[in-house]
């Protein structure tokens, strides 16, 4: 598996660290969020067999956090963008 880093190009898996499901949203107001909202954010996962949006950290490279769309049945990557919107126009 090679991940197409927007800065570095195709790089081998061993340069990256997995950051998990990128579809989960942290509760906007942590102090007001209900126990159910925290349960959902911290523990519950859709775990699809198919397209999965996930974070990867290019920890052995440019150290950018990426948001990658990958098929969990084939490991095929269809999209890899920076996780955080950048001022230079590269947006997730």
């Amino acid at each position, binding site marked *: 598996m090679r991940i197409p880093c927007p800065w570095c190009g195709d790089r081998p898996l061993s340069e990256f660290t997995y950051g998990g499901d990128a579809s989960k949203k942290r509760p906007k107001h942590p102090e007001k969020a209900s126990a159910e909202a925290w*349960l959902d954010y911290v*523990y519950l996962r859709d775990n699809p067999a198919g397209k999965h949006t996930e974070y990867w950290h290019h920890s052995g490279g440019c150290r950018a956090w990426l948001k990658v769309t990958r098929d969990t049945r084939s490991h095929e990557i269809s999209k890899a963008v920076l996780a955080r919107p950048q001022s230079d126009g590269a947006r997730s």
Partner: protein
Amino acid sequence: MHYSLGSIIRNAATGHKHWPKQWREPEPKKAYDIVLVGGGGHGLATAYYLARNHGLTNIAVLEKGYLGNGNIGRNTTIVRSNYLCPENSQFYEHSLKLWESLSKDLNYNVMLSQRGALVVFHSPAQRDAAIRRGNALRLNGVDAVLLDAAGVKKLVPAIDCSPSARFPVLGGMLQPRGGSVRHDAVAWGFARGADAHGVDIIQNCEVTGFRIEKGRVRGVETTRGPIAAKKVGIVVAGRSSLVGQMAGLRLPIESHVLQCFVTEAIKPVLDTVVSFGAAHFSIVQSDKGGLVFNGDLDGYNSYAQRGNMAVVENVAASAVSFMPCMSRLRLLRHWGGINDMTMDGSPIITRTPVKGLFFNGGWCYGGFKATPASGWTFAHLIANGEPHPLAASFSLERFESGLVINESGTGPLPGTH
């Protein structure tokens, strides 16, 4: 048919042409008292113990493939009960006790070999942790023996115990009653035992949906037609999230791939189950002579049943640094299994919000050794509607309440357990 010395002699005399089939291949009936979704080791064990312990026999086990095709035939055959958390320790110890009498109970040789399970440590901090774990095990009535480096060298000469090793060995914690089991025999033995009690084992029958009316389960839809049931148990290893979603369950589980390896067969070199302490690496020698070993999870969500080369390289490096004599062995086979990784690394055996629907899964990669106890306690839950005391902590509610059982202490990161 009861297997015995007499039955072997009789069948030998007739050229082994009259051995009966070990289980029937029945057509699914329209309705059962209990339907178990998944004919893996745990599903078959659950059916067997429902019949044996609770006298319930109007049961169907639905398997989408064939018996022995899934994780029951993909693991590294290791059994042990050296867990630190008291909930796990007692549960797995019950499992090991069941293993010890299973061949006799099933009248089927599962080839349990209690050759000892050794975990090696390489630093003073790891030694402290091992001693703590050993003491905790002994307080729970589980066997544990502390070895120094000379003791490790004596027990397993193949380990590099020299001071110049990349990770010098300081000692190890041995569970003498740990060992290995012939894994496919476990599937066949439980299937034969359940079938003998009248359980219908239905292969090539995939569940495609659940019939739920007014919050109560009424049956399942399958590729071979609908089947009504008063109670349904889901026990589907790596596909728990997908099957659970059909019943409206949202689970704290991610599916991850674990790769296993077996080398060409060599003469006996390793008569103990051994785990390396410096990286995730466990190894056992099979009766055929192959060295069977696994490394770490690949670490990302996967349903692919195959992994990537980075882990292969890491496992090979661990093998050679731990047991340098392996450096020139060739790999014979290499495969991946899909593991239900829970958010705390411990299994789930639970009721669900749907009445009559029960769930068993999230075995991470510790499921094989748990097979008998998983079946035993899940059967208890399905039969009585109340959790077995040994598995009461494995409820789904623990994620709401925060009473998680996190053996490794790494937090809600499934890839790290």
